[in-house]
């Protein structure tokens, strides 16, 4: 059990990051990160290009080991977990990678089916049906037998999302979901994310610098500042826009330069 008090509004912490230091060799990217993601949050990890947003996400899903610190899911320490326990935790997560990350040697149905085959007791017909359903949820009905290279980038993103939610995960991670999408597709993806959160009851963690997305879907956030190597602001993006004392965060959220932001505070 970790000694974090449950906040007054009844929200339960789902992901807790404790003193996380990210480093490549001797180069420290971020130092002593501390933040909590509550159940049902749409949590935004924001920051400028090269601030380590995607790297932070890779730490959260165990693709990179932290130089120091821990990541907790509920009460379980993910970072220090035994391999079996870690697999168990991973099974409850879904990840949409920046490039989609679909397995190129498999059709869309096989991409989703592989997870179902591995982790459920479904028979091949049922697997096929569930895979088709997941694809239908993201608007790709009838594309079961296409290979990832045969569909457009936006469709690959959506297929990636269908695969990420194959096992009805408790946490969904999105790495730059709107990168490479046109404004309408990215808006539709945002709506999809919100709908999934509401219907699956999942916690959503999104890495993005897309302002429109941040304000539409986010209800909690952290801002990574590469200069101080730490989180300089956290909270609801709209509140940060209105009240954040840090000019860099305000400038980011208003799409201004820092000097402009200093001239019109609050």
């Amino acid at each position, binding site marked *: 059990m970790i000694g974090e008090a449950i906040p007054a509004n009844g929200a339960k912490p789902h992901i807790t990051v404790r003193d996380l230091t990210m480093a490549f060799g001797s180069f420290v990217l971020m130092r002593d990160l501390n933040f909590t993601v509550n159940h049902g949050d749409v949590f935004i990890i924001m920051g400028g290009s090269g601030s380590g947003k995607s790297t932070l996400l890779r730490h959260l899903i165990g*693709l990179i080991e932290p130089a120091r610190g821990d990541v907790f899911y509920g009460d379980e320490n993910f970072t220090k977990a035994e391999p079996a326990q870690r697999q168990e935790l991973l099974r409850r997560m879904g990840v949409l990678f920046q490039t989609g*990350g679909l397995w*190129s040697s498999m059709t869309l149905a096989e991409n989703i089916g592989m997870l179902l085959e591995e982790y459920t007791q479904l028979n091949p017909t049922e697997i096929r049906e569930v895979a088709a359903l997941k694809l239908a949820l993201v608007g790709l009905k009838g594309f079961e037998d296409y290979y990832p290279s045969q569909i457009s980038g936006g469709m690959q993103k959506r297929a990636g999302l269908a695969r990420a939610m194959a096992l009805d995960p408790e946490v969904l991670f999105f790495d730059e979901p709107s990168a490479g999408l046109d404004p309408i597709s990215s808006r539709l993806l945002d709506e999809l994310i919100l709908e999934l959160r509401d219907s699956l009851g999942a916690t959503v963690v999104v890495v993005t610098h897309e302002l429109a997305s941040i304000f539409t879907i986010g209800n909690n956030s952290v801002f990574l500042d590469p200069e101080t190597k730490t989180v300089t602001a956290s909270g609801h993006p709209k509140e940060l826009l209105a009240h954040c004392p840090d000019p860099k965060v305000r400038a980011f959220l208003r799409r201004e330069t820092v000097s402009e932001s200093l001239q019109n505070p609050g």
Partner: protein
Amino acid sequence: MSNDYGFSFVQTQEGTLVIRLVGSWRLRAGIPSFADLQGKVASTGMLKRIGFDTRDLTGWDSSILAFVSKVSELCRQRKIPMDREGLPVGVRKLLELAEAVPERKGARREVEKTSLLERIGTKAIGATDSLTEMLAFLGEMTITFVRLLGMKARYRTSDLVLLIQQCGAQALPIVTLISFLVGVILAFVGAVQLKQFGAQIYVADLVGIAMMREMGAMMTGIIMAGRTGAAFAAQLGTMKVTQEVDALTTAGFSPLEFLVLPRVVALILMMPLLCLYSDFVGVLGGAAIGVGMLDLSWTTYFHETANAITLTDIFGGVFKSSVYGVLIALSGCLRGLQSGNSSSAVGDAATSAVVTGIVAIVVACGTFAVVFYVLGI
């Protein structure tokens, strides 16, 4: 369009150096030499300011910008104020834009001169790291193999079948060509010498034994290292770039089981078959020379070959080829998984896979030669 462009400078009474820019400045035509001006500024100790006169400037592009920013840099060094009023508005704006963001501290890479000792040290540390990485990979692969034997490894059978096709049947044409030629070459080398003693018939022994014991396995190994090892590295490298490997890891599938294992198994299974085939085609190549040039009959040639070689020779070669298969697959996959995240990195991975594969094969071949000799095989 006039090609007459350039600058001149005059010093006014008040100590202002006015640079007169004339003509049409174009990048295509080059940037006028800066040395004169530098010399002038250096020789005149008491310049109060530097200004520009662009009344006769008829056109400009980035060339003038490059020139003016050099002047600006010179002014900053010598602490002479620069008067930008004379410049066209566009040039002034671009200049401001270029100077708006100050150079980030530490952004510039210093080309440091490193001593020989330091470079040797860095290389040595790098070598240790890559050795550790290789050992870790081998260790994990061993565990994966144990899982395979316990029927616990997870991979797609359809992947394995496809790989078997790719590195088995599809490699036959090239193996045929090379093996036949190797047989021919061996026969030629032997024939020239043996003919002197009237012992042409022993060409069959020579080609047969050489193909079975060494050349069949070796040539198949080298062909497969170039063909399949490189392909493995490129496939896995690309999968890393497109985050497919990450997706496997987070989905709880071990990339080693899922990607590396079927590749190793496919080569272990196919290399012995390819090697046997190569042995046979090599003997055919030798026979072609024997029959065509040394006036031996097909029957005599094959009878002599059959007498010369033993089952031990054949199995020795086949066993070696299996080992080469493991080495090729492992080096291809290791380099692929170590690949960086760019297209050129994938290319490097493929190159390095071939080099590693061939080096490993040759080293293994030498080791086998010694071991077989000691064991008396």
